[in-house]
């Protein structure tokens, strides 16, 4: 099962690499929180890193009862660059500025931008990204919510690359721990919200910042 998901992620990775002409920012979004954006973002980042790409994973979190916040951003070993400006402004221009910096350093920047319907900053990230992947939990996703997301993406002029359907079992397995999915991730919590915790380690393992572009 673990090998299967890696193979399936490699298919998605190949499509992303083919669509990107250079260093690119890929936003992964979905209409619902549980549609598997975290799984897809991590899996895609892992898959890209496994083939030697310099990858940065940016994770976001939205809690319905509070304003949107960037919860964890860690770039490289030194923790640069800081995205505090982006965190504070939630603006499209700030996202573009940050993404420009990311493109300078990484071949691929994978942004987990879930729930753009409820988050203005998530929508800004999606709009500023070079490519957008939409995660849909097949058999569970709601038509109405996905219609709204499609409309929001059109209004944000997002460059949608395509849709990745996510199997619910894989989401659960991913949420339960990286040892079951063979993904080198340590979310730290059984609940899907644990993915919002800060990373202890950088995503980019095999590609030092600035030296592994492409």
């Amino acid at each position, binding site marked *: 099962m673990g090998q299967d998901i890696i193979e399936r992620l490699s298919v998605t990775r190949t499509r992303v690499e083919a669509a990107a002409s250079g260093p690119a920012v890929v936003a992964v979004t979905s209409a619902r929180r549980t549609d598997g954006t975290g799984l897809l973002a991590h899996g895609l980042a892992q898959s890209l890193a496994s083939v030697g790409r310099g990858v940065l994973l940016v994770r976001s979190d939205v809690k319905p009862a509070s304003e949107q916040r960037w919860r964890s951003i860690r770039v490289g070993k030194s923790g640069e660059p800081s995205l505090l400006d982006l965190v504070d402004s939630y603006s499209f221009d700030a996202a573009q500025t940050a993404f420009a910096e990311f493109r300078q350093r990484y071949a691929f920047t994978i942004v987990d931008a879930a729930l753009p319907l409820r988050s203005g900053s998530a929508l800004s990230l999606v709009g500023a990204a070079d490519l957008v992947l939409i*995660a849909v939990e097949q058999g569970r996703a709601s038509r109405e919510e996905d219609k709204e997301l499609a409309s929001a993406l059109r209004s944000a002029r997002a460059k949608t690359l395509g849709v990745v359907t996510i199997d619910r079992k894989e989401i659960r397995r991913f949420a339960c721990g990286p040892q079951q999915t063979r993904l080198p991730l340590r979310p730290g919590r059984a609940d899907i919200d644990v993915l919002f915790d800060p990373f202890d380690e950088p995503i980019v393992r095999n590609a030092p910042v600035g030296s592994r572009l492409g």
Partner: protein
Amino acid sequence: MKVFGFGRVIWQRRFVFGGVLLIALACSPLFAKIARPTYEATSELAYVGSGSASNAISLNNAILPASDLPDLAMSSEVIDRARKLSNIDESVDDLRLAMSVKESPHSNVVPIVVRSKDPSEALVLANALADSTVDQYKSLAERQYDNLIGSIRDQLEGVQSQISGVDMLLQRSVQAHSAVGAADALDAISKHLDDLELQRAAAYATYVADSAAMSAQGGASEGSGLAKAIREQILTADPLYQSLATTQSKDAAALATVKAGYTDAFPGLAGLEEKVRIEKTATDQAAVTAVAEHPGNSATYAQLVMSQHAAAALASGDKARVSALDQDIATAHAALDDLPRYGVTADILRARRDSATAAYQQLEIRYQQTLADRAQAGALSAAFVLDHANAAYPRIPQLVLATLIALFVLALAIGSAYLAEALDPRIRTAVDVEDLYGAPRIGTV
């Protein structure tokens, strides 16, 4: 692609589809019982006429158009009559729902179809409706003729009244102006005037002649011979004069005797002569008095006076006649002057009367024609029963009915599957995802 989509929906909703299908199949005997066959009986009406049923029936110039035949058959009056004929207790509205009358634009045949669960009821009612429709058609046709006849009769009376009124006005006009009342008023007045002129000329001539005769008689009385005779007749008839004349004659004779026997010296001669002279004077005076005071004593004079009076009367009569003719001539001239005014009125009245008379004659002809048409319509109706229904047949054959039930069950199951699919808000297929976002699916995790 659509077939694939249909299969996909059925497969995704296979439990709903199968469940509904099983339930429907279990209930199919109930459906078959509910869907009891309906029987149809058809009777056919036909109408005489050319063209389609939308044309008017041409026979007898009937007023009721054939296009009304279906409506007539569906009317409450006809259905009620048929209901009574067939002893059916259902209401008229229910029966109307159970029947249909079809009209073909290319046929003169109008079928009446009655549907019922009871075949005998359908049969009886179809035939009763056909008979009732024909009877009602005939009744309406005659009734329409009656209405038309009444209308024409009213028009005849109106025109007759109009003629009478015009005649009265014309009569008054003629009475007021006899000449202008005539059709050839100008000629009549002119001729009448000429006659009056001639009569006046004749009368005036007579008057002149009679006046001349009267004058002549007046002059004749002044003549010596006739006056002497009248005087003698007066004196002869006057006794005083005769007595005096006799005495005077006797004394004159005695005087003559004395004078013959004696000389002038005879003493009694002078006295006698004086006596005779006095007597003669008295006699002359008596003669004058008699002539003056007693002209009637002369027959000639009396006749003369009478003649004079007659001539004067004749002349007066002539004069009066001339005056009367003058008055008539003046009246005729006045009528001639009034001719343009009264004549035009009379001409208008006469023209109106002629027009009314012509209209009356036309109405009379139409009236007679309508009477004849009604008699013919009563004898032969334009609509008749072409064919009575002799059997009632199931409207839908059993095999077709069973097939329809099976199709219904299948459609119910498929519809349920599609309904479940439509009511499911979740995204279940990649096609749904691609349709929603307008982007391809590039992977599966």
